[in-house]
């Protein structure tokens, strides 16, 4: 018998070699208690959270929690069914209404996760003879959406406007084209030049899908994302988003002004063949989304946090993913996996949790310590965080 698991041997060996060195497993952390959007207890120790996607700190919002509790009481713990059968409750419609209002768009469709939203929309709208033109650093859910469908896939170099334009020009003018972009790329925390890219794509007759997972809630005047901030949201055909970041729960969505959009509810398999979100989840999401519409002060504070952390880390001598802070993600580039894991552990011992990111999630084989800020991190916490980075960086030899 051939062991189907033999293909994983190189990864198993790499992992055990790393752990034999005595380092704590960076991919096996358990939070014993969560005190707030910015603090949890890990291994019995109070830990500042700097590696969550809780950008707007909505997870403990009293209105959000009250809405969830009420929905649990009134509608039960789950729908036990697909959106197209018994799985659409008033709450599912209400959260789609909230999204339409938030984005000022005609249609909103809610999926059970953000991953499924990309999987479903991309695989369904781009057919066999159509082309998907995508940034090489696209999220796994975008690539998996391509793999689930059977369109022709054309990648272009990350954020390279000329590379996109060249490829669009080589495609037959009459063929169906979908350009897939992200507002914020989550590994390095850099934003896309959407203004130029959307214009080029539209000029070439392509439809444009933008994943705004990491920008919703705080980038753009109304928190609609990078497309709003760069003034091109009206030219974007589909925006994909998630409830698991700024919204603070779980779920995914697509919003659009396409007049035929609603047909997707019948033809999109990752929407049809899975259970809908529990009533408590859609209730918390709807409440959170409506509150995010009026969170200008929090947006300002989050930007201040990002700028302060970025400048502070740079001053300490760390190499960062972007020259200026583009979003609430700040990526600290590590020389290799061993140093990254040692630094990650030293930070955890200091009382700070960040994400250790590795290929295939990261571009160009990089090891990153990815920091994501929250609007509820206080000024003092950002100061504490910088102190911890200084201590851990010196202890591991990352900085002098």
């Amino acid at each position, binding site marked *: 018998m051939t062991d189907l698991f033999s293909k994983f041997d190189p990864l198993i060996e790499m992992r055990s070699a790393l752990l034999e060195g005595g380092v704590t497993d960076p991919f096996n952390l358990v939070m014993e208690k969560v005190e707030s959007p910015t603090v949890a207890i890990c291994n019995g120790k109070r830990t500042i959270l700097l590696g969550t996607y809780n950008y707007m700190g909505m997870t403990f919002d009293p209105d959000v929690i009250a809405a969830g509790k009420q929905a649990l009481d009134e509608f039960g713990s789950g729908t036990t069914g697909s959106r197209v059968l018994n799985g659409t409750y008033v709450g599912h419609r209400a959260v789609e209404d909230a999204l339409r209002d938030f984005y000022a768009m005609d249609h909103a469709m809610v999926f059970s996760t953000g991953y499924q939203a990309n999987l479903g929309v991309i695989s369904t709208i781009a057919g066999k003879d159509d*082309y998907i033109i995508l940034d*090489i650093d696209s999220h796994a859910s975008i690539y998996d959406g*391509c793999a689930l469908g059977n369109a*022709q*896939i*054309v*990648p*272009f*170099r990350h954020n390279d406007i000329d*590379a996109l334009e*060249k*490829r669009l020009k*080589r*495609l037959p003018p009459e063929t169906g084209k979908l350009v897939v972009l992200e507002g914020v790329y989550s590994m390095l925390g850099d934003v896309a030049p959407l203004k130029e890219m959307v214009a080029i794509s539209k000029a070439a007759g392509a439809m444009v899908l933008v994943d705004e997972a990491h920008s919703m809630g705080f980038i753009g005047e109304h928190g609609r994302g990078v497309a709003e901030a760069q003034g091109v949201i009206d030219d974007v055909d589909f925006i994909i988003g998630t409830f698991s970041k700024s919204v603070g729960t779980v779920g995914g969505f697509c919003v659009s002004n396409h007049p035929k959009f609603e047909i997707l509810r019948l033809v999109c398999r990752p929407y049809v063949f899975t259970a809908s979100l529990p009533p408590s989840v859609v209730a918390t999401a709807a409440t959170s989304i409506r509150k995010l519409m009026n969170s200008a002060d929090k947006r300002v504070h989050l930007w201040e946090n990002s700028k302060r952390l970025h400048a502070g880390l740079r001053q300490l001598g760390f190499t960062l993913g972007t020259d200026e802070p583009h979003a609430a993600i700040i990526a600290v580039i590590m020389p290799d996996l061993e140093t990254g894991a040692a630094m990650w552990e030293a930070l955890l011992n200091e009382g700070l949790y960040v994400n250790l990111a590795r290929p295939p999630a990261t*571009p*160009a*084989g990089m090891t990153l310590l990815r920091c994501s800020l929250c609007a509820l991190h206080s000024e003092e916490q950002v100061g504490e965080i910088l102190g911890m980075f200084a201590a851990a960086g010196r202890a591991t030899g990352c900085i002098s």
Partner: protein
Amino acid sequence: MPDRQHTLAKVLELIAPFNKKGVTVSEGTRFAQDLEWDSLTVLDFVANVEDEFDVLITMNMQAEIETVGQLVDVLEKLAA
């Protein structure tokens, strides 16, 4: 020079700057195993090939191309 030989010569020329290990390249040379290219190198190389021949080589096509000779075949087909 026949067309195919000409295409092969151009491809070899485009491989050279990415042939960091100095591997002797022939039609049978495999991009992943012999040249040990990672995905970013492949992207850069494919972009250069696309520009040189003014064609598009989709990821679907790339998945079928393992060797230098197979790439030449694809380019010949695209030019036809």
